[in-house]
């Protein structure tokens, strides 16, 4: 992927053509309301895990499994300073709704909620949050893992890593 390494100058230009993909078109409250209704939303500010957990409170559920994808300080051997996520919000919302529905059909779960954050993230920030509740434990694990894999494969979000010298690189998912 040599040709995907951008020079510092190129980055300024990139920021411009990607600016609209770093923000969501709805308000924060609207995004959470969407997550509550459809089980999926994009967000362009820090993810409030407590709000999402509240959506999953259910007295009939004995199992709650959650996944948080956090920005790592390295990718393979390279030190990472920060990361930007870019999203195609309208498609992501439509696709996310379908993925949550499919998870509920495939697995014996009660409910699932997932949020992907876009914009500039720092090391340790949560990029993606997935929570699943079910009566018994295995379906919650299976569904959470499947949701993560499917979100990584099908939700139109892309990321660029920035390094110490302000160079950057488009990333491919490598787990």
């Amino acid at each position: 992927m040599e040709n995907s390494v951008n020079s510092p100058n190129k980055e300024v230009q990139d920021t411009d053509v990607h600016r609209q993909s770093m923000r969501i078109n709805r308000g924060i409250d609207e995004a959470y309301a969407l997550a509550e209704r459809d089980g999926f939303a994009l967000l362009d500010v820090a993810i409030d895990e407590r709000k999402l957990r509240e959506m999953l409170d259910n007295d009939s559920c004995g199992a709650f499994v959650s996944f948080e994808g956090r920005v790592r300080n390295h990718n393979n051997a390279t030190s990472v300073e920060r990361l930007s996520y870019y999203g195609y919000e309208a498609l992501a919302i439509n696709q996310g709704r379908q993925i949550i529905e499919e998870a509920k059909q495939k697995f014996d779960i009660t409910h699932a909620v997932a949020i992907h954050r876009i914009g500039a993230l720092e090391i340790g920030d949560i990029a993606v949050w997935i929570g699943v509740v079910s009566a018994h434990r295995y379906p919650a694990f299976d569904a959470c893992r499947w949701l993560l894999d499917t979100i990584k494969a099908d939700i139109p979000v892309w990321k660029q890593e920035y390094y110490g010298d302000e160079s950057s690189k488009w990333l491919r998912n490598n787990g």
Partner: protein
Amino acid sequence: MNVNDKQKTITKDITVLYFADLADEANCHEEKVSISQSTSLNELYEHLNARHHFSRPQSELRVAVNDYFVKWTEIINDGDQVVFIVPVAGG
């Protein structure tokens, strides 16, 4: 029949959005494109590829119309929003 009506019968006006690598290569996020009635999604990509010299062949891409993934055989309608989707990398 005025000139505008005549135009409508032979072309479709669509919007194309670019994300990630494609936005870098097209050097824009969005462009308006007029295509002939019979243009397929494959042909649209080849047309835009000739203009922007994208680094990815169509075989690596998916395509979305009006905010839903569609097959490459989907018919383009006037006013559609078309997006070519390079492999995603969220999470």
